[in-house]
């Protein structure tokens, strides 16, 4: 198994650099285009949500992505406000998907594209884990 680990501020430009690096890493380890895309998307949307709603844009989040034969998994640890990405929340939850605010749409994509998505709080940190199944 191969792993890429990084710390990143949960704001747009550093997230973009990380997702580009992640995609190159996964392609370098033979991961297919779909899985590569969706892992990068899940990481971006969770980090964006942490930066937007977690009130911790100045505190780096820790990200690790692991390539395994059956799936690519990831763990994201942050010190922002507790938030479970598995739960649809807010007034937009009942809106048609394309009419939801972008933040809400991002988490819808996370839930739909992940084959596994878990969340816990440990020692004052949010721990989000996910996986995208490989074909």
């Amino acid at each position, binding site marked *: 198994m191969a792993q890429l680990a990084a710390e990143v501020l949960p704001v747009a*430009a550093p997230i*973009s650099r990380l997702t580009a690096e992640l995609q190159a890493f996964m392609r370098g380890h033979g991961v297919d*285009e779909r899985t590569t895309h969706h892992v990068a998307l899940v990481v971006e949307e969770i980090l964006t949500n942490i930066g937007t709603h977690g009130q911790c844009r100045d505190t780096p989040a820790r990200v690790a992505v692991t390539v395994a034969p059956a799936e690519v998994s990831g763990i994201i640890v942050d010190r922002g406000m507790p938030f479970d990405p598995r739960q649809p929340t807010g007034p937009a939850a009942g809106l048609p998907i*394309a009419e939801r605010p972008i933040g809400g*749409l*991002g988490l*819808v994509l996370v839930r739909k594209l992940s084959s596994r998505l878990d969340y816990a709080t440990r020692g004052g940190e949010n721990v989000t884990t996910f996986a995208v199944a490989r074909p």
Partner: protein
Amino acid sequence: LRGRSDVLRENAMEIQEERIDGTVVATPQGQLDGATGPAFAARIDAMLARPGTRLLLDFAAVPYIASAGLGALLAIRRQVSATGGGVALCNVREPVAEVLRISGIASMLAVHPTRAAGLAALSQGAP
């Protein structure tokens, strides 16, 4: 220290613009994400300055899209609807196309397999 111009340049997305048979064809290159989405939307917004513009977005060189990019596409669609033009996508890579379908945007914005098909549909008044 990195200046504002450095940040803007870093977040800029190269977009080739051409006009074919009265349709503006825009070909962005690179990730369409939270960093590049706003600049992408601003560039396309400028291309739509003339009411009634027909716009074809050739996504052959867009390997990745996140929700910020989807938001930019929705904004473009709203603007085109307001000004009486047409907009469509073509040459969309499969992972990006899957995200368009899952998000529901593929039902709001026509996606054509080739540039020729997109140009033909737009020239006939269909998106």
